């Protein structure tokens, strides 16, 4: 098919997301404001009041309710959407756990922002990562274009009856939501063909009454939880298919569950998620010209965790440096933990080093990435794999 992105516009990231959501024709949108998510829901509000988008737009009194409205709406059979960030996502946590358990396929934009305290409105991934065990599918994007494309795919993933789970598309606050970029849009008919109306197998139907949200104790609880995991694991194949179907329509391929960038002969492989991947690709190119065999894995789909794809991409690497924009207190970065757990006991595994970088929006430049690579090389020379992660650009002088 090829390039269908006929309309090309310079858009704020938030607007690109709103246009993607509009193209998906959600029946219900619920919103509660929190920075830097607001521009998305404001843009949608304008579309609804101007009659460009036919959707029930519900203004709620908290993020807890925003997610709960989606639960009710999707159980009643409507395609449903909201956006949130930081504390707002944390406030939704209980709802998201229960909704994944009840297999409710709504879509949330998780605008990534640091969590309190101290209060910070700058981007990092701690908010979304705190939901990693909830059963929501998490996909991270690098650019506004990828955000646009991924939101449309997200509904198809969520609503696939074999998956039937909520999906969160994660995009860095400000860096993506508030910056302007050239974005190519897909024609509405193409979107409609790719994403037909939501037709759930089960919904709240007076002609066929069913009960939702039962008690299931020790005799059945485990099976329900296993079923979520199974849907995620089995869903990996389907997610890749959906991504590539969309790539055929839009002419843009952002990769599958991961994007492997110059990893083929790489000795050092960086792993990153979100907008920093762009900077990292630049840094990789530069290091390559300097003769260093460096590559990058951009994780697109964090849950389900794409360890098969990552393992394949790092099989010849000597060392993997995981850039983490979040931290599991008292342990280390979550991506590193995931990866090391899957590597354990396998033969010929690369050394994995955890690099905490960019918390609370601390800027990651190409320079930071060169430093990471230097640090990794040093660790390798010394032969000692560090127990503790490196906290890049930490200011020890201000610590208590």
């Amino acid at each position: 098919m090829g390039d269908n992105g006929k309309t090309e516009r310079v858009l704020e990231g938030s607007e690109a997301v709103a246009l993607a959501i509009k193209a998906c024709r959600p029946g219900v949108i619920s919103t509660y404001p929190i920075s830097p998510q607001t521009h998305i829901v404001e843009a949608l509000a304008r579309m609804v009041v101007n009659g460009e988008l036919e959707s029930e737009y519900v203004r709620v009194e908290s993020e807890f309710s925003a997610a709960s409205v989606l639960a009710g709406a999707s159980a009643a059979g409507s395609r449903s959407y909201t956006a949130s960030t930081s504390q707002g996502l944390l406030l939704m946590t209980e709802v998201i756990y229960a909704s994944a358990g009840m297999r409710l396929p709504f879509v949330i934009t998780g605008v990534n922002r640091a969590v309190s305290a101290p209060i910070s409105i700058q981007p990092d991934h701690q908010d979304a990562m705190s939901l990693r065990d909830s059963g929501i599918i998490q996909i991270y994007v690098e650019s506004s274009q990828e955000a646009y494309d991924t939101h449309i795919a997200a509904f198809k993933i969520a609503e696939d009856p074999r998956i039937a789970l909520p999906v969160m598309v994660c995009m860095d606050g400000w860096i993506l939501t508030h910056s302007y970029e050239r974005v190519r849009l897909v024609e509405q008919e193409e979107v409609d063909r790719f994403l037909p109306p939501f037709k759930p197998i089960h919904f709240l139907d007076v002609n066929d009454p069913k009960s939702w949200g039962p008690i299931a104790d020790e005799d059945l609880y485990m099976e329900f939880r296993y079923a979520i995991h199974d849907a995620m694991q089995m869903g990996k194949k389907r997610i890749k298919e959906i991504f590539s179907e969309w790539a055929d329509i839009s002419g843009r391929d952002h990769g599958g569950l991961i994007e492997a960038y110059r990893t083929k002969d790489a000795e050092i492989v960086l792993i990153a998620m979100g907008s920093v991947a762009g900077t990292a690709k630049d840094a990789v190119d530069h290091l390559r010209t300097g003769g260093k065999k460096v590559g990058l894995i951009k994780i697109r789909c964090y849950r389900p965790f794409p360890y098969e794809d990552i393992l394949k991409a790092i099989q010849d690497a000597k060392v993997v440096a995981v850039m983490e924009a979040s931290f599991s207190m008292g342990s280390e970065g979550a991506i590193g933990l995931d990866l090391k757990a899957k590597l354990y006991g396998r033969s010929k595994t690369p050394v994995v080093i955890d690099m905490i970088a960019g918390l609370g929006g601390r800027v990651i430049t190409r320079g930071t990435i060169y430093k990471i690579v230097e640090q990794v090389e040093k660790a390798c020379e010394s032969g000692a794999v560090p127990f503790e992660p490196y906290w890049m650009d930490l200011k020890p002088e201000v610590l208590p």
Partner: protein
Amino acid sequence: MSEKNAVQEKDLFVSGHRACHGCGQALAVRHILKATGRDVIVITPTGCLETFTLTYGYSSWRVPFMHHLFENGPSVATGVVAALKAQHRDHIRVLVIGGDGSTFDIGFGALSGMLERGDDVLYICMDNGAYMNTGGQRSGATPIYAGTTTHPVGKKSIGKPQLKKDMPAIVAAHGAPYVATASVAYLKDLRRKVEQAMTYQGPRYIQIDAPCPSVWGFPSDRTLEIGRLGVQSGLVPVFEMVDGRITGVRKIRTRVPPREYLSAQRRFKHLLEGNRAAREGFEKICAMADSNIEKYGLMD
């Protein structure tokens, strides 16, 4: 409809559930659904009702039913209403049946939001005056001086020191077009109020006094009697409000002394035995009955 005909095989809420013997709310729900008919979707926040009617594989509900969490019944209902509207299925009505814990306390913010938005939901609170599903801890609906497991009676305590929140007034203050209280002791009145509420659009609220033999502490064959004593003593005023104004009250024909109501329940027993504080508490409750009678005009 005679009492006998009111309960037939075609019940939308069926027996076989796991409520305690004599549970007031099980009875009430059967009659609520009689009044709504089958074109409703029921949302129930976590509480006794959800746990005793829906164990995986077994359901007492012959209407579409959903439980999600403890504190989000109103917002889930909002979502359902929005979806029905989006799908042009809006002839189907949405009902929340919550306990007093979810209504008065943890779900209060969500309820307030739903009321303020004016969503077309009939919210019914099964008020048994405590967190029964977890064993009888105090809630914002617990009557003053009731003994609860988290505010037990002891050397320094004669039970919960605070007044019950006046939820009907709070709901009415949000501009809800129809607000009523009812009691399981008066099922015909209860059914009529549900029918009445169904004729309105927008957020409607009915608070039902639902005696709980297990935690209030009375024999399970006395549920209706205890409910009646509550109403007849003036401690449980039964009334109806339209657009914020009281339009009807259930009159007390023969007034029952509060002592009769209190002494029949374990949770109040201590007020009738014991020290000066208990006596003062008892007097205060009697005064509350008087003031209810005056405030709502319960006696001619």
